[in-house]
């Protein structure tokens, strides 16, 4: 046996094989990261998105102009050194307002997606893992939610329930909770379907059978063995959803049914700006650009992640 020389030995001489063997072990995530880094626009998206987050979090600490200093003599001014984004009709500084409002817009996007992902993953994993009647019932439930008209229902629930929540939690927190909950609860369906599909295929794999044979309980199989393998699907879905949630919140505020006027989210700024488009186009352009930049960078990040986490595309 030892003297037989196979074709493989000839091709792969020990000198070449050595460095290959010494290469550090690479996990799915490091592979994905390598892949992701090659997607230039996605990397740019990460930089822009992190910059926007930093700006809204740190900006108000460094930029001291108050958000609510009313000065009619300074109303509707275009961008200048004193007011980089210009001022609104009451003479309030729009950069300061956009920075503070951005915190809310971004927070709504992230929290709403956390809600929808958590709920969607829960429904999807239970349906996919247990199958049978549970699956049928949960999928009917998902289909029902998919058939609900999202935007009209959002408008409706927010209009109907905002006063109650405002009384219970205060004007800002109340409306934040309501918007986040409603957006989250109307967007979990695609995630639940993706997770279910992933569960269905993974639970057939041998390693699950092996784990079952050593006596792993259902909960352990679900959360320690199958769920980590569906993470890539969930993360990609979540990324793209953050952009959608930010757009939805802005759309609600834009329709006048989002945050109250004293919470200047980007959508709310657009809503206020739309009656002054002739006198103060800057009022609409800057917040709009911020929404656009955020969503564009998130979409590019999502695109890069999809490519990076798709095993068919590994180079």
């Amino acid at each position, binding site marked *: 046996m030892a003297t037989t020389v196979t074709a493989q030995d000839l091709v792969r001489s020990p000198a070449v094989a050595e460095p290959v063997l010494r290469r550090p072990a690479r996990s799915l995530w490091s592979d994905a990261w390598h892949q992701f880094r090659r997607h230039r626009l996605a990397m740019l998206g990460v930089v822009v998105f992190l910059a926007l987050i930093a700006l809204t979090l740190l900006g108000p600490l460094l930029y001291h102009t108050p958000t609510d200093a009313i000065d009619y003599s300074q109303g509707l001014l275009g961008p200048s050194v004193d007011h980089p984004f210009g001022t609104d009709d009451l003479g309030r500084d729009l950069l300061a307002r956009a920075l503070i409002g951005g915190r809310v817009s971004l927070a709504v996007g992230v929290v709403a997606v956390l809600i929808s992902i958590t709920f969607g993953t829960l429904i999807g994993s239970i349906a996919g893992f247990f199958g049978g009647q549970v699956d049928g019932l949960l999928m009917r439930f998902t*289909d*029902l939610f*998919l*058939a*609900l*008209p*999202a*935007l*009209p*229902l959002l*408008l*409706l*629930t927010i*209009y*109907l*329930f905002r*006063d*109650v929540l405002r009384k219970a939690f205060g004007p800002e927190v109340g409306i934040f909770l309501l918007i986040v909950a409603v957006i989250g609860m109307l967007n979990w369906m695609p995630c639940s379907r993706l997770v279910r599909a992933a569960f269905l295929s993974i639970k057939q794999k041998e390693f699950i059978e092996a784990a079952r044979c050593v006596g792993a309980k259902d909960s352990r199989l679900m959360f320690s063995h199958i769920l980590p393998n569906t993470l890539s699907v969930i993360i990609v879905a979540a990324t793209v959803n953050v*952009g959608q949630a930010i*757009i939805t919140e*802005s*759309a609600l505020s*834009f*329709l*006048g*049914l989002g945050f109250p006027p004293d919470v200047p989210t980007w*959508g709310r700024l*657009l809503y206020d*700006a*739309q009656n002054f*488009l*002739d006198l103060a*186009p800057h009022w*609409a*352009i800057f917040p*709009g650009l911020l*929404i*656009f930049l955020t*969503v*564009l960078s998130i*979409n*590019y990040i999502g*695109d890069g992640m999809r490519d990076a986490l798709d095993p068919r595309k590994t180079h």
Partner: protein
Amino acid sequence: MGRFIVRRLILAVPTLLMISFVLFAVLSLAPGDPLSQFAANPAVPPEVRENIKRSLGLDQPWPIRYVKWLLSMVQGDWGFSFGSRIPVWELLKLRIPSTLAVVGTAYLVSLVLAVPIGIVSALRQYSLMDHVATTLAFIGFSLPTFFTGLLLIITFSVKLQMLPFIYDSTLQVRDMDTLAAQLKQSIMPIAVLALFQTATVVRYTRASVLENLPLDYVRTARSKGLAQPTVIGRHVVRNSLIPVVTLVALSAPTVFSGALITEQIFRVPGIGALLINSIQNSDTPVVMAITFTFSVLVVLFNLLADVIYGVLDPRIRYD
């Protein structure tokens, strides 16, 4: 096929029942009294308010009201608007044409633009044209419709003074001048909706064509000696458009939702504007009618997508 459609239609009934129940429950259980405007009015004594309430049937518990609503809705009676005192259906009939005109044209425009762009972009992958098309599609896909609308108004109405930014629904097309005016006022609302839809469809078409190009049947067609236009036109495109058609059918309700926002921006007196007004005035019957119409659209277009998919793709079998 016929049996499949019938079965899906029957299955749609419980879905719609559930949806209408959920919508009705949300509307009835919500705090907020449709008669609150009378409560603020000192000229309306409480007894009169009670009478109005009774005449509108609001004194009964909501499950009973739901059953009554359902029974009359099935017979084509959508109830009376609290606000405008005319049947809801009459109100909808006034508003639907302008929405359909804008949404329908936007939908057609986006298809006519997006499918060829997507196909050419895929055939010349990584060419300059492909880069431009994919980048523009990405931008169009990430631009919220309300921002596009405001940008268009700033550019074309405020700066260039070319287009009116308020949609005049009383305008009647009688001669060339009014026709021109009608076209001018429709361009921006249509463009906003069409841009977003085009971007989505371009991305989808391109991806689908790219997926089909390396497949065996394309190589077979080429090795038979077919010319490039035949291979692309008769083989690749026909197969690639199957998922695109489904996407287009599925996105119809989204386009209608998009109309909610464009109608608000351009003051188009369509069904979306009616919904927002009715929500703000607690005009429950109108809100119920419109949201339910939206649900019917969603369910209907889902069914349509399924059916089209089956017709176009003989590999799909319904039994």
